[in-house]
């Protein structure tokens, strides 16, 4: 592979690809350049360093993504009964969102601490300080045009090499944040945590060993789907690699809303009733207990109220609530 040739002119960088020798132009503000002909990627500030760049495979096409979103909408509380029959696909945009992959590997070892590795690959440590080891994914662009949660991770699914054809298929977002600047921000909490652990562990001080690495970029595919129901447009964000519904809007029916709100209200009143039984038995003052039970049930009522107050329902995937309040990945 020959060297990258860069030439700057009026806010743009003219690049001759080191692999296929094609010439192309990119705005000066971007951090990474990807050859539109062969897919070779490098960092503008450090063109000779090797970069890992891959894509997650798009397994769900726009039709299956729309169907996933529509079918998931029918599973929501209070949704209109005829969504399946009266909704139709409007449009779909494929976004490739770039994410930086960092490996955080920080150890704060007690003075004199040694790791002994045996021949069988076993590790023995006599006294230990602190450690933080994890992988972090960070969005490589300042603004993502789709509602993607910050702590969204990769699924266990196949990747593929970057192919220039994706530039035609979808909106390929160019990374514009500096990966090394971000690296320090990403590392800081782990560094503090490891030191904190070493402070409560070591007798005679500690030393920090930082083996953290910046691995590269991955582009991840999402479908931004628009669908119509009785003249109104609703949006959905679908993970194109594993089919997770990340964000979904759906029409609520009046009867569904009233029924759910009624349920929430009934639950609050029942709580008040039980509370009043307790204070009636102990204090002979049922009203006080009713108020107590009613207050304790308000957070629950707010859950139903927030879901049912507007005629458009919203669902947001929260990684921390997976498998408890929402489906699994």
């Amino acid at each position, binding site marked *: 592979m020959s060297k990258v040739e860069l030439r700057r002119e009026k806010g743009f960088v003219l690049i001759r690809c080191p692999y296929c020798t094609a010439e192309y132009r990119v705005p000066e503000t971007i951090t990474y350049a990807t050859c539109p002909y062969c897919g*070779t990627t490098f960092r503008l500030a450090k063109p000779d360093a090797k970069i*890992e760049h891959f894509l997650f495979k798009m397994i769900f096409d726009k039709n299956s993504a729309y169907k996933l979103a529509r*079918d*998931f909408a029918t*599973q929501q*509380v209070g949704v209109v009964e005829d969504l399946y029959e009266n909704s139709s696909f409007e449009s779909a945009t494929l976004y490739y969102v770039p994410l930086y992959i960092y*490996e955080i*590997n920080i*150890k704060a070892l007690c003075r004199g601490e040694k790791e002994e590795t045996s021949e*069988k*690959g076993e*590790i*023995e*440590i*006599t006294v*230990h300080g602190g450690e933080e080891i*994890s992988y972090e*994914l960070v969005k490589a662009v300042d603004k993502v045009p789709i509602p993607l949660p910050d702590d969204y*991770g*990769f*699924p*266990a*699914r*196949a990747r*593929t*090499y*970057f192919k220039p054809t994706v530039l035609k298929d979808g909106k390929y977002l160019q990374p514009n944040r500096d990966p090394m600047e971000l690296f320090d921000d990403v590392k800081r909490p782990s560094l503090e945590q490891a030191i904190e*652990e070493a402070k409560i562990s070591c007798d005679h001080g500690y030393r920090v060993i930082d083996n953290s690495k910046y*691995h590269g970029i991955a582009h991840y595919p999402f479908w931004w789907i628009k669908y119509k129901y009785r003249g109104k447009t609703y949006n959905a964000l679908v993970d194109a690699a594993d089919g997770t519904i990340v964000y979904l809007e759906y029409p609520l029916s009046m009867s569904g809303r009233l029924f759910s709100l009624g*349920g*929430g209200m*009934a*639950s*609050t009143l029942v*709580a*008040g009733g039980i*509370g009043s039984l*307790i*204070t009636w038995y*102990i204090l002979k003052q049922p009203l006080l*207990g009713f*108020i*107590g*039970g009613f*207050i*304790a*049930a308000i*957070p*629950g*009522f707010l859950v*139903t109220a927030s*879901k049912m107050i507007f005629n458009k329902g919203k669902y947001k995937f929260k*990684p921390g609530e997976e*498998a*408890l*309040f*929402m*489906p*699994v*990945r």
Partner: protein
Amino acid sequence: MAISSDNEVSSATIFRCRNCGAPLDVSPETIVAICSYCGYANWIREDLKEDILIVESLKDNEILGKARDRIETDKDLRSIAKYISVLRPYLVCIPFYFVDVKAEADYSGTVNVRVRKCTGSGKKRRCWITTYTVHVDGHYGPFSASYPIICRRGVKAFSANALGTYYLRNPVKPKYLSEIDFEAKTTRRILAVEIDRKTAMDIALDDHLDTLRDKVTKEIKREAESKVRWRGAVVGSTIIWKKITPKNIRIRSSSIIILPLYIVPYSYRRGVYRLFLSGWDGETIVAEEPMKLSNRILWGGGGALIAGLLGGAAITLFNTEDLTSIIMGAIALAIGGYSSWYSLKMATRPVRVEVIGEKFRAIKELGEKVGKILSVVGSFEGLIQVIGREAIHEFLSKD
């Protein structure tokens, strides 16, 4: 040669079959590529041939049979089984390290323990809280555990973690990758290894020692509280200084073991749900199931019951005009509020998720969260002592 010096395959390399010269379809995941023209197995990652173990998977139709069996016998699904149609299964083969970690810890700590004391009886009864500063030290462990570490960077996948945990409990003998007769379809579903053994061992070490530190912190509190229990009812404790030194740590890792995970979608009415099956025995490890109206009512009712009980108890405690009891009342009200929020979130969720070996997982999770709230404000035992013995007795003896 297709492989560069550091075992990473570059995107621009063109691969050809070593037997017939036809072009090969290669991705970053490819360990072995089966030529679609002549069927020859081209090892792209020769270095992994003898090092990686794989658990062989059942075939698609066997998995479909297992999924149907589950639907027809599961207590929640069998009544609606005739309305369910099973869709095409999807296989993914995930590489894991299984890491055993064993560790001990020396500890010492200074703890402020709050104790409730009372004098007199009836209307002259007065209660107050005294704080005692207690020093404890000792040795904890050995404490050992095993961790399934997915060999992929940045993966957050509940189902894959559940597969690793299931394998730990139900291990089967894997084979070497080189002993397997591959079909082209299967090889494309094998995910490549992205994490080396040392990093996997470090990840397990981090998980293990974080758990160990939590356990020792609880032990320090428990010991300090038990030292002053004879002085009165313990209502809470705060660690003001502690030292926890992990010692004699041993870490041992398995070879890489690739485990097959099957995802079987099924449709019921208009919704689509998924079963996650372990590929080697077809056992359902995670199941998404439809939320029935009865499930929603049960959660809504349960939330109302807890909120009502705790709300009523809170008012009763407020009414004693004793500071400790009022604090207890506020805690009861907070827990009641949290429980009603949690229950209504459960009642309005789009699907139910069942995980193998984890019955009543949702209730346990709620219990753990409530436990955490309690540990912030005081020790659980102290609370029970206060509410159970003195306060309740006091309330009942009123009038």
